[in-house]
């Protein structure tokens, strides 16, 4: 293999700085889960088809399984572990609990990160648009109604910045 030299990659994850020596074939998802022990970000397909691995990179929602860790050198990453502030849940996290927007919980971190990114994008104005723009995040338990209800509540309430 020609690729087995590690690259030093600087990531700021949830406000903490990390310098990782990673091989270029390591996805951001695997770097988070295996190297930083941030297992809140989930692997559901590893092919960008399910959305479970969604994180915020420099404020934008990205699929961490389709992102190599080395590509994000110098970036600020927010994972589900960094969404609550000092034990204080984000309004969307609270709304997810209240609306029972999950069952098994495995797609939940991706739904929440994607939802926060989606709300910031400001493109969704109606319930239908929210559902459409969240359709990259699969939920096999079928919690769609609770998920969209939670997002609509937070969207209408403002307070998600």
């Amino acid at each position, binding site marked *: 293999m020609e690729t087995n030299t590690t690259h030093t990659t600087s990531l700021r994850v949830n406000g903490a700085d990390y310098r990782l020596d990673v091989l270029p074939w390591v996805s951001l998802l695997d770097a988070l889960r295996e190297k930083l022990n941030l297992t809140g970000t989930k692997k559901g397909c590893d092919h960008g088809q399910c959305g479970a691995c969604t994180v915020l990179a420099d404020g934008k929602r990205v699929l961490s399984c389709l992102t190599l860790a080395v590509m994000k050198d110098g970036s600020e990453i927010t994972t589900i572990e960094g969404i609550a502030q000092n034990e204080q849940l984000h309004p969307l996290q609270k709304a997810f609990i209240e609306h029972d927007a999950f069952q098994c*919980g495995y797609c939940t971190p991706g739904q929440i990160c994607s939802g926060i990114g989606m709300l910031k994008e400001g493109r969704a104005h109606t319930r239908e648009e929210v559902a459409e723009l969240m359709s990259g995040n699969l939920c096999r338990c*079928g919690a769609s109604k609770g998920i969209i209800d939670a997002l609509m509540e937070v969207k209408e309430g403002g307070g998600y910045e």
Partner: protein
Amino acid sequence: MTKLPSIGQPVSRLEGRQKVTGSAKYAGEYNVSDLLYGYVVNSTITKGKITAIDTSAVKALKGVEAIFTHENRPSTAWFDLQYADMDAPPGTVFKPLHDNKIKFNGQPIALVVAQDFETARYAATLIKFEYEEEAFITGLVTNLDKAHEPKKGLATMLKPPPPPPVGDFEKAYSCAPVKVAAQYTHATEHHNPLEMYASTVVYEGKGKLTIYDKTQGTINSQLFVANVFGLHYKDVRVLSPFVGGGFGSGLRPQYQLFMAVMASLELKHNVRVTLDRSQMFTFGHRPQTVQNLRFAADAEGNVTAMNHSGIGETSSYEDYAEILTSWSHMLYPAKNTLFEYDLVSLDLPTPIDMRAPGGVSGMHAIECMMDELAYELKMDPLELRLKNYSETDPSTGKPYTSKALKQCYLEAAEKFGWDKRNPQPGSMQRGNKLVGYGMATGIWDAYQFPARVQVILTKEGKLILHNATTDIGTGTMTVMTQVAADEIGLPLEDITFDYGDSKKPFSMFQGGSAITSSTGVAIVAVVKELKKKIIKKAKGIKGSPFSDIKDEDIIFKDGAIALRSNPELALSFKDIMTLIKETELKAKKMAGPDVLKLKNYSKATHSASFVEVEVDKELGTITVTRAVTAVAAGRIINPKTARSQVLGSMIWGISKALHEETILDENLGKYMNANLGEYHIPVHADIHDLDVIFADEKDELINELGIKGVGEIGLVAIPAAIANAIYHATGKRINSLPIHFDALL
């Protein structure tokens, strides 16, 4: 503080915070030290033998620790029986890496273990296999002539064959004034829980293992590992505190468990094996089915004759059976019935129960047949159901422990606005869309398994309960805490339900919508036992005001015992514990269904679904715009989590009717869409207005809690209701699921 009674309150999931903050850990997320990573290699042929294996390219790779194939695998148990898990169908269980024979495409044939995940994955691509291929069959429809009667075994107890014929079907059918007949076919489906199968095996030394496994049964996995690898039961501990969905796929130990344990024992090391998404299509699935139905009625609409003959798929090595064709006679009192069920053995992995196995496939056919019959009779489909409504179970003649199906029909019809339906197909339109209304009935068993629970009252006066069950997202932990809260009279905050661990007292695997009744009833039983102990201890305290009080005059309230006649006179659990100078009070009890009583009754949950679809006139695209499902499942412990179960099931119904299908290439003998991009399940944008009603159903016979389970019933009626709505919209009967737009063009 939560208020009691807790049962009936929409309590939010107690583990909610862990799930929304990412701290909930699943099987493949325990990053123990010195962890090795395994990656499985799968067969690229469908049937035959491995004739040669070349691992030279892998051996040269830095970081590879071991390669396991059938040629070098460590010895495991000799007898097939030792591989048989609690859910094994009759036959010979599949043994990974056992020999050079290939029984299905995607069969696991090697495991590469490396120091990191990426190296293991890369190395897995470098092993070269040579095969000798043999002819195979994988299609059901093209091999119906090979159907055989299912083998019988232990599993037959839970899945009996269809009941024998009643009356004379052929005669009744041929003489009947009104009759319908049709064939229904169903595609293969894969469970695809979003969490992929994973096992993290912690090597504790001296034949001891701690295993974080994705499973629906911790004890099932524990027994499997101990039996196969010759370990003592007590030395194998399986933990599954969080399970990222199961839907039946975790009712049997999956092959990553075998692989990870084998490698861990051999290398004396911590090992994790996680399957990838394509590998999630290489074990159990919902089988293809072909069903032929013939129903007849008299001129007034009384159903007189029902024939339901179904053929399912199984593997070449086990006879997996479903209850597919027995359902119609549990609903409709026809005097002449003929039910049959056979299997075709195919060169595919053994199917495994998938949410409402058999029930959803069988009821799709039955309820579409009923719709056709209603049209033939020029009768409203709901009226036909009500005309043939039976308070007792016609298939056994026994009364139901409870049956609020009529309320389901009426309440859901009212909420849906069924009376606004013009029965003429194609008569209702909205812009360029044809609008259709369809309805169907659902029925599912009300299982209860034996379960054992241990309860501990701590010196702080708090309660801890132990049981081995999992919580696969159903809300089990929350619901069990609620049951215990009401029984002991403590707020939810003071109760811990500790679960997901094979070391804890017995639970069956989590399937069949059975855990709430199974573990719930055991909790009631064990807490009653504890209460007796508490009273006895309280009475024994020197100068106790309860000494001369009869047990039945003592109540449990707000974490204390008190006099029924004067609740002011109370002694808190905490004070009792202090006064008796004990650190804890314990009780353990096994409970199960009251078999003697229940043998005089039939038991079932019921549902009715009403669905509106829009079909685009030009494109044929189908949208489920509205659906209402009413469920009769006894007492609902937690309306919030129960509603989520039913909503999720309804989406599964939409998916089965319109979306999901694993596409088999019969020439290659392999699934062609083994990924989540091409295996379609509904996305958020596919889901519109869904409504759930719980019918008020008091059941004092089924069990002490009056509960029946809600995990599957919400799915059963939806596919037929959608197919019937599509007929109403378009005048086309599409009897093959899933229904795609091209069938309507």
